[in-house]
């Protein structure tokens, strides 16, 4: 995005959980353009603000703790500030997390940015019994400090004013931290070297900052310097000084970080004033139970159960509404249109409308699920769930945080895979993205219900529950395997900030729900829609030519279509040890494209509407309880919809997407075969 048409540009920075998203919304009125930072899968949010007649572009930088070169997010933020040179960087500091917020603020100042500080959550600090003298903070740091309370909007106008002012009057505070005589001398020497040998560099970065980074052995800066013709000289000088410092004060990087934190402590001491004796913290109070090993787990499981109830049972009227409206009313309406060729009305009714219906019928459940999940997330409870499972997950060399993408995956695998981004360690993130598809998503449920209901009767509920559990167990086992082989690495460990419990904020919840539901609707949705069309086409045509829409209702006819032939060949070869018939095989094949299709394609193959499907399957005795269970397990494990594969490719690359495909099909085959084997040995038919 270029700067055309806008008169100014600012960036929003801050550590996680300081209310940055809310501030962004307050400033931009919620109008944001969402995309990706170039070359990476990190989200970029841009909005506009009008102040003093100037139009200002507001760029939301990723939430980061510092500006090192160790993480993609930090590099993005750093490079944006240095290359795009925003007119102002608004650093959002949380009044209840001062130290860490200010550490980032100092880092931004050292980078030479034109910083103004938004001191957010001052009301919460007041509740904890202290107040921050922001005027004093302003004089110490030398940049404007504006207190705000984001949820109510207090202070936002002053913030906008301050932004307008800062665009005109730039303040820079590069020397905000004093590193002690010895190090300062080293810094000056490097600065001199840089200024004399490569002055062009100082146009981009402050010389002092480069010096600091060289002493810290910042890989990004070292790389950039080494590319200069005079680079080697500069680097040699820097290394020389580094070695000297190492002897005198120890590892320069650690020293520098410590010294920054000392400065932060000094500042905090000077500006915080106690106002009242704080009372007990509700968060700690509740956490004493919620994070308790024994009590916390049943509570968490209960909450998840209630979440599922909410998603499935409370959304039922909407689901049926969609079903009746689209698969019933619209469908029949389309079929009744006169004057158009038969194949066209069939395409319209059984292809397109059925396709749209297949997607929309899942929408309420998924939306409700994500809504409930977002509420739990916003309240802060999800972090505690991660804490509870951490010890168990640790045995599989995975961080507790992995549980969150898995739970999201229960709604829809597509946002579940995407949620793996939240895990910092490369190896752990890749592993999580690859095992997330094993979470039994919503789309698989109809298959369980129809087949389980038809064949297993009363045991169906238990069988379905066991499948959900099986999914998690397999995810952990595969995760461990991956961590032992492809993604080896010591567990860098799980570190997470536990936000205080807060009442859920409607805006935040709505945004999160919409973003995840959107993934389903657009990514998965389009795939499912196309898949339905393909199924339709392959069902009404065959090697003998066009069979006509009667094929959709006549089981004899459909045997002759492409679909039927495919099914029969699969059933007699690959799936023969499982004892599944050709219809089941075909359904599996289409399920490869989208699990949502399995039930509807089965309905077509039996020539009945979906309501009668269960009875028909039971009558036909196409499955025995054992083969039915094995079938359900296969559906659980084998490739999730193509949309999920696409997401895996998005996050990890083509190589891993193919790997996911292969391992899941193999695993599914092995597991269902084993089920049949063990079952037979135990005497089931």
């Amino acid at each position: 995005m270029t700067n055309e048409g806008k008169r100014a540009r600012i960036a929003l920075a801050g550590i996680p959980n300081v209310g940055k998203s809310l501030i962004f919304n307050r400033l931009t009125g919620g109008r944001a353009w969402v995309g990706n930072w170039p070359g990476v899968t990190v989200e970029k949010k841009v909005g506009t603000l009008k102040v003093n007649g100037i139009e200002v572009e507001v760029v939301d930088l990723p939430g980061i703790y510092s500006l090192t070169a160790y993480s993609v997010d930090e590099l993005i933020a750093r490079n944006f500030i240095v290359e795009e040179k925003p007119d102002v960087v608004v650093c959002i500091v949380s009044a209840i997390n001062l130290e860490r917020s200010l550490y980032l603020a100092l880092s931004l100042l050292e980078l030479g940015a034109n910083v103004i500080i938004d001191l957010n959550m001052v009301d919460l600090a007041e509740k904890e019994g202290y107040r921050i003298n922001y005027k004093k903070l302003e004089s110490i740091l030398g940049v404007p400090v504006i207190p705000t309370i984001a949820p109510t909007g207090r202070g936002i106008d002053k913030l906008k004013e301050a932004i307008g002012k800062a665009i005109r009057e730039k303040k820079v505070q590069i020397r905000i931290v004093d590193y002690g005589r010895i190090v300062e001398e080293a810094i000056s020497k490097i600065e001199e070297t840089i200024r004399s040998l490569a002055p062009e560099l100082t146009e981009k970065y402050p010389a002092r900052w480069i010096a600091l980074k060289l002493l810290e052995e910042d890989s990004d800066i070292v790389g950039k310097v080494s590319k200069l013709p005079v680079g080697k000289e500069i680097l040699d000088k820097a290394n020389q000084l580094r070695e000297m410092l190492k002897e005198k004060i120890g590892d320069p990087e650690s020293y520098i970080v410590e010294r920054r934190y000392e400065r932060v402590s000094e500042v905090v001491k000077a500006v915080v004033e106690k106002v009242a004796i704080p009372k007990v913290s509700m968060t700690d109070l509740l956490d004493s139970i919620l994070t308790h090993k024994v009590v916390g787990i049943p509570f968490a499981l209960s909450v998840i159960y209630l979440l599922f109830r909410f998603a499935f049972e409370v959304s039922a009227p909407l689901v049926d509404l969609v079903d009746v409206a689209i698969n019933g009313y619209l469908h029949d309406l389309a079929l009744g249109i006169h004057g158009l060729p038969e194949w066209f009305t069939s395409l319209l009714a059984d292809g397109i409308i059925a396709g749209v219906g297949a997607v929309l019928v899942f929408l309420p459940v998924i939306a409700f699920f994500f809504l409930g999940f977002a509420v739990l997330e916003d309240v802060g409870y999800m972090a505690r769930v991660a804490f509870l499972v951490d010890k168990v997950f640790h045995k599989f060399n995975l961080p507790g945080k992995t549980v969150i993408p898995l739970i999201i995956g229960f709604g829809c695998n597509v946002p579940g895979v995407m949620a793996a981004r939240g895990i910092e360690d490369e190896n752990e993130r890749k592993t999580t993205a690859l095992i997330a598809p094993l979470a039994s998503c919503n789309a698989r449920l109809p298959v369980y219900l129809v087949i389980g209901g038809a064949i297993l009767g009363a045991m169906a509920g238990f069988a379905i529950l066991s499948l959900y559990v099986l999914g998690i167990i397999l995810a952990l086992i595969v995760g461990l395997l991956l961590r032992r082989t492809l993604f080896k690495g010591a567990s860098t460990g799980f570190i997470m900030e536990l936000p205080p419990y807060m009442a859920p904020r409607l805006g935040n919840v709505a945004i999160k729900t919409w973003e995840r539901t959107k993934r389903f609707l657009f990514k998965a949705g389009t795939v499912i829609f196309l898949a339905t069309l393909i199924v339709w086409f392959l069902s009404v045509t065959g090697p003998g030519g066009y069979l006509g829409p009667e094929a959709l209702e006549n089981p004899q006819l459909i045997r002759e279509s492409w679909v039927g032939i495919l099914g029969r060949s699969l059933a007699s070869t690959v799936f023969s040890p499982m004892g599944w018939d050709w219809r089941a095989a075909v359904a599996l094949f289409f399920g490869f494209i989208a699990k949502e299709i399995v039930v509807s394609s089965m309905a077509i193959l039996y020539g009945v509407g979906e309501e009668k499907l269960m009875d028909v399957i039971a009558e036909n005795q196409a499955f025995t309880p054992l083969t039915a269970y094995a079938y359900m397990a296969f559906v659980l494990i084998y490739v999730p919809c193509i949309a999920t594969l696409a997401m895996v490719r998005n996050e990890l690359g083509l190589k891993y997407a193919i790997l996911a495909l292969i391992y899941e099909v193999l695993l599914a085959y092995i597991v269902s075969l084993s089920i049949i084997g063990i079952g037979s040995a135990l005497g089931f038919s």
Partner: protein
Amino acid sequence: MESGKSIFKRYMYVIIPMEVMLGLAYLMVGLIAIINWYLGTIGAGEILYPDYVPGDLGVSLVMLSIGFLMILSVYYWFRREIMKSLAATILGLGLAVAAMVMQVLVIIASWLNSIIVNEPITYEELKLGFLRADALLGYTALPLLYVPLRILRKTTITQ
């Protein structure tokens, strides 16, 4: 740690006995639910209290958790760990109310559903839904929440 809100301590003499009763009630319902589930899967015909307790493992889990929390609260109270007792009370009652609300929502949803698919649902069925054990016990739990929440507000910081 001082928390000298004696007025509210007196209320605790109401809450704690209620928690004992409710806690036991929830535990019992939870156990019956498991029994009913088992009876359902082996197809043994009659289940216990079919109008009130479903044979559902999930419901049983929630009931047992709530009962456990309430008993835990009483336990902490007698060990003089007042804050933990308060926490357990709030969470136990909170979960109870959540389960009740969920059941109510589900019944309302099924009523809406019956209108949409044109399979009318009888008044009897609705009534039974609203009177199911998890809802019933939840109605009792709801007013009890007032006391611990009041104490919470006076003695803690809510953020």
